[in-house]
């Protein structure tokens, strides 16, 4: 029982990174129709930015949680304006290819600038240590990560359901044909939404900084799992991204605990089952995917 609680917390913590990043991937896909291959690289940039800001300006995790997503927002908007927008009228595969190239570029630039062995990161003291819960020591940092992720997901959900902007975005994401029919102009939200999605990946990176190795390659395998997450959750679905993220995190943790050798393969098996049984994903709609 104790072990199950620990694995659950660990799975949800790992799932938090996936959920936040997948949420970004989902809104970008929803509004732009673009699958952003560079999302893993943006996650990496978020972590690297946090480490660099701590090293140069002494900006702690608290500051980084605000500043880095804002920086990533601006960076994402620049990427959209300079690169992504030119390919929007074409087959979405072109933007997949573009962002793939961008990934190679970003990873190598970070390698050259910040080396290959990784960057150090110190978290605030408040977030170290454990809390006792039913005789089990649970790491505060993992609980913190879960808390932030849930808050942000909830915030995004409120944004989507309670504000005009959100409704437009949601309409475009989940009911593109309806948005078109109602004559809603999605066009001017394209750039901010792309930036917003990138900011979410950056936020996941900041949260990962104290917990994981900060290297140029840290997003390379992350993006593959992220793809599995959105395929499982349903690419067009915001809820699917979040649920898929946490689900994959839990599968990873329990897989590691009870079937260590197959932990990584399990995620892909889950994906295969979903593709077979519900090709559009758990929360996806057939029309929402091309």
């Amino acid at each position, binding site marked *: 029982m104790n072990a199950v609680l620990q694995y659950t917390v660990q799975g949800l913590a790992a799932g938090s990174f996936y959920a936040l990043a997948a949420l970004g991937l989902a809104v970008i*896909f929803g509004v732009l129709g673009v699958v952003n291959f560079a999302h893993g690289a943006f996650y990496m940039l978020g972590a690297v930015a946090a480490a660099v800001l701590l090293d140069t300006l002494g900006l702690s995790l608290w500051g980084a949680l605000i500043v880095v997503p804002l920086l990533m927002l601006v960076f994402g908007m620049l990427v959209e304006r300079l690169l992504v927008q030119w*390919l929007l009228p*074409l087959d979405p*595969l*072109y933007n997949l*290819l573009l962002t793939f190239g961008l990934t190679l570029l970003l990873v190598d630039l970070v390698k050259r600038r910040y080396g290959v062995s990784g960057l150090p990161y110190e978290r605030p003291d408040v977030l170290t240590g454990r809390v006792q819960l039913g005789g089990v020591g649970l790491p505060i940092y993992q609980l913190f990560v879960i808390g932030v992720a849930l808050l942000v997901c909830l915030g995004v959900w409120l944004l989507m359901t309670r504000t005009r902007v959100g409704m437009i975005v949601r309409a475009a994401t989940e009911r593109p044909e309806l948005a078109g029919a109602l004559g809603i102009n999605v066009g001017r939200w394209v750039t901010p939404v792309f930036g917003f999605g990138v900011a979410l990946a950056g936020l996941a990176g900041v949260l990962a900084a104290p917990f994981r190795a900060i290297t140029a390659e840290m997003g390379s395998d992350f993006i*593959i799992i992220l793809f599995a997450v959105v395929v499982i959750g349903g690419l067009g679905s915001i809820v699917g991204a979040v649920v898929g993220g946490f689900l994959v995190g839990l599968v990873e943790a329990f897989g590691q605990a009870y079937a260590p050798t197959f932990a990584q393969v399990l995620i892909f098996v889950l*994906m295969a089952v979903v593709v077979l049984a519900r090709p559009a994903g758990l929360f996806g709609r057939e029309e929402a995917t091309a």
Partner: protein
Amino acid sequence: MTSIATAGASVSEQHAAIAGGRPWQRWVLLAVGLTVALALPWFVYPPVAMDIAAWALFAVALDLLLGYCGLLSFGHAAFWGGSAYATGLIAIHFGVPFPVAVLGGALFAMLLAVPIGYLSVKRSGIYFAMVTLAFAQMLFFIANQASSLTGGENGLQGVPRSFFGIEAVETDAFFFYYAALPIILLGMWAAWRIVHSPFGRVLVAIRDNAPRARALGYDVERYKLMAFVLSAGLSGLAGGVFAVSHGFVALPELHWATSGEVVLMTVLGGIGTLWGGVIGAALIVMLADYLASSGFDGIGIVTGAVFVTVVLLFRRGIWGTARHLYLRRRSASRARRS
């Protein structure tokens, strides 16, 4: 929305490509291609020449799927690497001449492609790319763990190059190139035949308008699956030759970066041109070879920048652009004449 293949080359150009232009032009192109293939190891370091040939077939195989079915596979490393391991294991354990091992490897790749393809072709477009990528990565994890069979990250070392006891081929990369070239050319011929067969025309019809093809009574998924399996088989031929040429197989052959590399070659050469991939492969392999000795340590910066530039500015790729310019000039001069 235009599909990725027709956006690279206009529909009329594709028809021209399928018809192959005037017959004599086709022969000239064929002759030039064969001459280059035969002369290559005289100009390029022979092991590098062999790499170019293997990657070229791999890129052609990918374009068969990307250009003619509109399916972007980001998981073709599974078939290239899967066949490389199968070829290596056959060569090590049975000591057969290498072409036999390579055929065995290609067959294995096709078998592997059946379940992966069955699941993947249920989706198209972006989904297809992501699903193939994920499955290929799964294979990477499996090969890494099954180190008693694959050698894990030490690689499967000591793949022999037996060739009927002809020592020159078995030890010298220069002669090996000529022994392996027929396999590569056979693969390319097969790709050409597939594209120009009635089957190939159905694929293009499905790519351009799947609902219409379905209405005409074609089983769209089955056609896609067949194309996927054939493409995997040709990728397998290429991967097998690559494995024998190097004398070992290592894990990166299965990694998604390899899938990305072949996509880069195809895009650079020109999607939907079939032969563009050959040029793309030659350029990328020679670039990697050059950078390895240049002292410049940012190969990702160069390939990434090339990728971004090509996708943004030269979507037709090299072959596609050349053909486009040629066709435009021809139609202009024809217009003037009449």
